[in-house]
């Protein structure tokens, strides 16, 4: 058996507490060496409360000499510089999404990792829910017949208790709902349906750059032909929180509530029926998606292979996000335009599909 990979977690905010620590502390191939947070008491309290056997440091540069890899869960705007520091020191990186706040930054980081022959994995945890590969199989095996379109909705009252609150600071977050959560959805649909050939993007940003609601129409030109999709994200109200893929023969549904299964809906003899598919594969039999993501990272390091989600895939998504932001129209909010002192209309501009 090979030596476990010595790992440091950068940032002790919400996602580290809820997902990365449980994954790291239960993975046999990993030895947690350090928790890093500028708020040292917070890191120490976490070590104490979770009974972890590692040290706490305020600056990640202090531990780069004693680890093989890092999980980077710092606020978005710090991803680039910290990733570069880690790669420069010869450490493999599993970085939370978004890999960077611009595509150019993500690209330079990815190129540098390639040059250094190090693993740079991006935290697209949804790829590691069983429904992701399952839907891929369903599509590839033609279970749905020719695919017509899809509808992907994710929304709820925002309640993410970020330790730093960086989410609502444009300079630190890099964007709003699209960059924060949309990257998961875009990564998934590109992986399933192929590259995006055209889009029409609207959001409700009134000038801060931190949109709360997103409407995005997409066209994919992949090996399954042209597929259109509608994507909706909200940080202010609940949506259906599911993906529905409509094919000529059947529809496939993935819900946020149970991302381990795909439900197939079809009509048999005039009667609507549903069938729940589960993936019978060892590597999807246990652990959280974050655990499987970590496991994939560990395997990639051991085999010097490519991780499931590498930097180039993140670049591709960030390029699309940037195009969306560059060609955005404002969502019409007729109920909001009635202010007497209003000088500008809040209505949307002209409609145009970008390619």
């Amino acid at each position, binding site marked *: 058996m090979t030596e476990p990979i010595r790992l440091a977690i950068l940032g002790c905010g919400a996602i580290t507490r809820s997902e990365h620590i449980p994954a790291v502390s239960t993975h046999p191939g990993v030895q947690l060496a350090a928790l890093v947070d500028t708020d040292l008491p917070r890191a120490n309290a976490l070590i104490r409360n979770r009974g972890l056997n590692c040290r706490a440091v305020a600056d990640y540069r202090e531990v780069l000499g004693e680890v093989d890899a890092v999980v980077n869960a710092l606020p978005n705007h710090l991803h680039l510089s910290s990733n570069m520091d880690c790669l420069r020191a010869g450490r493999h990186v599993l970085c939370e999404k978004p890999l960077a706040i611009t595509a150019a930054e993500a690209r330079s980081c990815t190129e540098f990792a390639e040059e250094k022959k190090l693993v740079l994995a991006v935290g697209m945890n949804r790829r590691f829910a069983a429904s992701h590969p399952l839907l891929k199989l369903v599509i590839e095996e033609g279970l749905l017949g020719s695919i017509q379109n899809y509808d992907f909705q994710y*929304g709820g009252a925002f*309640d993410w208790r970020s330790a730093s609150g960086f989410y609502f600071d444009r300079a630190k977050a890099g964007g*709003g709902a699209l960059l924060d959560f949309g990257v998961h959805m875009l990564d998934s649909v590109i992986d399933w349906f192929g590259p995006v050939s055209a889009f029409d993007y609207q959001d*409700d940003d009134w000038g801060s750059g931190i949109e709360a609601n997103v409407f995005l129409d997409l066209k994919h030109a992949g090996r399954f032909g042209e597929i259109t999709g509608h994507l909706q994200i909200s940080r202010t109200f609940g949506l259906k929180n599911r993906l529905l893929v409509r094919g000529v023969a059947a529809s496939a549904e993935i819900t946020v509530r149970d991302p381990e299964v795909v439900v197939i809906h079809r009509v048999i003899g005039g009667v609507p029926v549903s069938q729940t598919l589960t993936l019978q594969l060892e590597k999807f039999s246990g652990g959280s998606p974050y655990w499987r993501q970590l496991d994939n990272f560990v395997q990639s390091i051991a085999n010097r292979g490519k991780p499931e989600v590498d930097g180039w895939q993140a670049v591709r998504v960030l390029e699309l996000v940037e195009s969306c932001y560059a060609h955005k129209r404002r969502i019409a909010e007729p109920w909001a335009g009635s202010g007497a002192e209003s000088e500008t209309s809040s209505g949307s501009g002209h409609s145009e599909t970008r390619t």
Partner: protein
Amino acid sequence: MNWRNETVFVTGATGFIGGRVCERMVQAGVKVRALVHGMHRAARIARLPVELCPGDLLERESLREALGGAKVVIHCGVGPASSIVRGTENMLAVAHAAGVNRFIHVSTAAIYGITPPPGSESEDAPLRRTGDAYCDNKAAAEKVVLNYGKRGLPVVILRPSIVWGPYSAWSTRLMDDLREGRVAFIEGGPGACNTTYVDNLIDAMVLGLENDGALNQAFFITDGERVSWGDFIRAHMALMEPMPEVVEISRAEIAASRGKSSGLLLGSVKAAARVARSKEFRQMLLQIPLTEAAMKKAWNWVGGMPPEKRERLRARFGVRRAAAKPANAKFIPDAVTEATQSATVFFSIEKARKVLGYEPRVRFSEGMKLVEQWLRYAAYL
């Protein structure tokens, strides 16, 4: 005063009224500093070009920093009932010391109680203790505001009633309740609803900023229409497809039913614990840091929250889950709903008309159209 050249400081900015105030100020081209207690609740206003200023009404020092150089304060913040007075006083003290030249205090017509007594139609009606923590503390806060007015802080007090509009829980909760059969017309639904469309209230705020004759005075602000609870409920029912059925119930029936149960179900510690822990509860209030240690505190907080919030809680967690009513049994509204919808007083806006120059711009029917558009957008329809 020319408030358009000033920076406006908004408390309660992550709430329904404060959020809309921020939007309207941005539309007016005014610089806004928004007090934010829980950053995670700021999604709606984070999309606006406003300064998000972390702070807590209960920490005076934080308010000083958050206020910055703003010379206008619109105080929509509430917090737990037991802290209403202290939070308001902190804001007043900081504003006074900073030389703020207008302080709009958003009070409530509920200072006269959940069922205001006949005779409380006009602002000079005497106040008495209502026994409700929210109502009584909001009344006490008005006194503190007026005291600061005497000391030279230019204050204006607005007393809206049922503030509704896009994002309001009065509509979203009602839609949920209608869908789940948790609504009844009490005595047919003639109770006075006193709707106050949120934009009408903000019009009154703007008038309060512009009108020096309004200083040190309090004004009822409503839509000026005699909208009943029956009207309000029916207007929402009409949006739904298929239209839900709503039973009629008499007060006698409610009393008889209540005699059988042990009163308000949330009184029990067990029920309180269940509610406080549930995710649904947190999402509804979006306000409570939920650790085991904070649970008791959270629960005390529930006791002090505005009646409509408590009412929603009870509707959701008390009556529906614990009542175990037999199939086909009639829905029985809880005590707060009954009290709210039994109001007979329609507040007069004559003083606001005369002194402020207020005229409700959004009629109930127009407000409903806007609410309908928003409900569709927000996936409630």
